[in-house]
């Protein structure tokens, strides 16, 4: 059986950064990627806007991916298996994959780093009512069809949900001559980045209606239209105000779900809010030697954060494989009062700093974020605005940790 110190599952930005992180620590690394090339979802994100934080310049998705891919491929300590889909891994950290060239592949890992990314919520998952015609797509599927295959899904478009992919596709389809008639968002705020609302909708006069949903769709073979209606405080549509919009395309941008199917039965503890694993600051899960980073851990809006997080996980996985990862007791990080979740969920007290990533539950202007440990305040910060669509972070000194960490907002 082949052996590697660190086996990375998934070769998107998270997987590539994790592999490079592990290499910094001298580990031998394998990346198992299901697709025909490295890069993950970035390969279909041909728009600008990647790498502002990490590289200090604006790159397209494929450009950002290429910078990492070139490094990975140049490193002889990293073995890349392409078209290799991981089927399972067990307690002994034997990873099983299937590939056309290798057949059933079994690899013994010293540590495993999960980097499988996420998938989109489907029409079925939101119980979309009406008929079942062609013309209904998740935004990412439409993005792949246009940006990788070169085909446009339709000409008259309604988008449900204001997630980033939906916003970006609104602009993309408009530039291809389609008419985007409406973006309907069920929440009173967008889950997308502010800059995407400005650059993808406002600049093209595409209307965005909050607290609005699609109530049903019509059409037999191809979509002929959708009904939209405002929703009340309980998110129930106000059907008397239903309005019909003729269109041939409905794009869904209604949420991303970490792709954690591999974890069922492994004993890795999951967090309900993120649908990802519970981790400490090394991105170590509850199962020793299993690490997680990127969209499979929690859905990110900026790839820069993905890369940063994955470097941490990759280095830690290498340390674990060599038996030098610090261990010991952790304290829990508990979000409340406006903080929907915080990650890592557990932190080791000690030396150095740790960044707590978190998301808020609605748009806050001029509200303060407070972190306490053992009942004592250890950090506070007052960002101008915090929106659910934009991941926040706050850095704390580990030496100040004396007990349970609480993170919340206050006036």
């Amino acid at each position: 059986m082949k052996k590697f110190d660190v086996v990375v599952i998934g070769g998107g930005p998270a997987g590539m950064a994790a592999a490079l992180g592990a290499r910094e620590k001298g580990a031998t690394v394998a990346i198992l990627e299901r697709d025909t090339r490295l890069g993950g979802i970035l390969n279909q994100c041909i728009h600008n806007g990647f790498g502002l934080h990490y590289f200090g310049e604006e790159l397209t998705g494929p450009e950002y991916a290429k910078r990492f891919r070139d490094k990975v491929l140049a490193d002889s300590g990293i073995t890349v298996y392409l078209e290799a889909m991981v089927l399972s891994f067990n307690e002994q950290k034997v990873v099983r994959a299937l590939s056309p060239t290798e057949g059933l592949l079994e690899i013994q890992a010293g540590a495993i780093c999960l980097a499988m990314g996420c998938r989109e919520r489907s029409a079925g998952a939101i119980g979309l009512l009406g008929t079942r015609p062609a013309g209904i797509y998740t935004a990412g599927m439409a993005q792949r069809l246009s940006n990788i295959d070169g085909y446009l899904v339709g000409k008259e478009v309604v988008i449900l949900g204001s997630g980033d992919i939906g916003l970006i596709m609104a602009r993309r389809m408009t530039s291809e001559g389609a008419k985007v008639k409406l973006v309907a968002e069920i929440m009173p705020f967008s889950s997308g980045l502010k800059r995407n609302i400005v650059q993808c909708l406002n600049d093209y006069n595409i209307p965005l209606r909050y607290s609005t949903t699609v109530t049903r769709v019509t059409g037999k073979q191809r979509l002929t239209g959708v009904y939209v209606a405002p929703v009340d405080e309980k998110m129930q549509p106000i059907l008397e105000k239903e309005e019909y919009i003729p269109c041939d395309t409905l794009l869904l941008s209604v949420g991303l779900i970490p792709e954690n199917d591999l974890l069922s039965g492994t004993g890795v503890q999951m967090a309900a809010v993120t649908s990802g694993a519970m981790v400490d600051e090394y991105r170590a899960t509850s199962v020793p030697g299993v690490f997680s980073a990127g969209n499979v851990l929690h859905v990110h809006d900026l790839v820069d954060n993905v890369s940063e997080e994955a470097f941490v996980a990759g280095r830690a996985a290498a340390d674990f494989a060599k038996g030098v990862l610090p261990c010991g007791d952790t304290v829990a990080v508990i979000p409340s009062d406006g903080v929907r979740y915080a990650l890592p969920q557990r932190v080791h007290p000690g030396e150095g700093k740790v960044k707590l990533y978190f998301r808020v539950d609605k748009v806050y202007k001029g509200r303060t974020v407070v972190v306490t440990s053992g009942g004592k305040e250890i950090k506070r910060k007052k960002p101008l605005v915090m929106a659910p669509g934009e991941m926040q972070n706050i850095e704390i000194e580990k030496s100040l940790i004396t007990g349970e960490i609480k993170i919340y907002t206050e006036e």
Partner: protein
Amino acid sequence: MEKFDVVVIGGGVVGTAVLRSLSAYNAKILLLEKSSDVASGASRANSGIVHAGYDAEPGTKKAYFNVKGAAMFPALTKALGVPYRMVGSLVAAKEGGLPALQELKARGDANGVKTEIISREEILRLEPNIGPEITYALYAPEAGVVSPYKLTIAQADQAVVNGATIRLEEKVVALQKSKDGFILRTEKGEYTASYVINAAGAGASEVNALIGEYAPMETHGVGDYFILDSKEAGVVNTVVFPLPDEKGKGILVGPTADGNVILGPTSRKVPHERAEENEVTREGLDLVREGVKRLIPAVNLRSVIRVYAGTRTAVGSDFIIEQSARFPHYFMLLGICSPGLTSAPAIGEYVAAAAAEALGLTKKKEFLPLPARFHLNKSSDEEIKQKVAEDPAYGRIVCRCEKVTEGEILDAIRSPLPAHTVDAIKRRVRAGMGRCQGGFCRPRVMEILSRELNVPLSSVRMGDKGSEIAPYEVKEGYEKV
């Protein structure tokens, strides 16, 4: 004009069952189906239950074919490689429901169906999650679940293997008696037949009208369903029904043959012109939620991966399965509503025998089996290794949720009855039927179809004509890889 001995109109589970049985005889046979694939009508969207047979009125055709059909399922599905499990069913009743259960049991006894009335304690052993109000149940251990579209497709495939012809996207629009048989016309061609079998489901009355046979008013009832993620599979073990009422067998909770959980159906009347819309409604889904709560309250509705609707077509209260008195050699199958799926194999044998007798057909020496297919999900490590070594396409996973390989998709495209749409592939190999509902694999399936059928991606369809998925070319800004 092509000449056939027998033409079957309609490629549902009934029409293909007839075709399969007929293909055992020495005869030139044809099936005409108006959609882009078989299993496009009621046989695609139903509950997938192999009813034990206690429900049908004793002495009816429904009772006869149900009981006979159900008994054929274990061997038939095994031979065809179709998912089927004899999971048993429960009709769950609250306090006061005992007399109704006893009535059902009496019917079961009259129909020769094994049933038993069991107490709450015994129910709990079968269904630990049963609702608190349920006190008794009628247990039918021989009820089962089957994949209705896979059965339909496999029947079609085996018929083709045995020499039958199937023409898709050919709606019968004219049918007339000729001197020595019939002339059928579709949008694409003309055929003559010595014997015609009308198995057109919701379109059967219309087909009868074409030739001037009795064309009764049909009633159509739409049923809405939820399908849950396979991770919920443990919540229910048998098919659990409420007590039936005048509208039908009620809203059930059960496992599907492929390992998901199914909830539904409702029964909403729709006019004939809307019988093929299969629209899912809010009221319908609300009724399902309500119904399910009483039977298995633990059902997790947040794990829904799909909602859909199917339409039943009924004519009066029993099946109409008879040779026309006015036109000898014309056989009609009308009002094949539930338990039509269960009855189909028995109906197929019966109708084929009638046609064979009328035409004096003889049985072939050999009835060829359907070759077994590789399914990654159901294979041992050794089988997988060998298969991938033979053809690397079996090592390339396309649908990650259901673990379907490119090799399996190619098999579907190269089937006896070839799949040429995304939905046809989905029904054969489950690519796109899992929790992400094709979000990831649909473009890949389209790429494979485009390559194999040698057509541009823009003409790859979901199903019937007009359902192209990505019909326009992008002008700029993509890199072909």
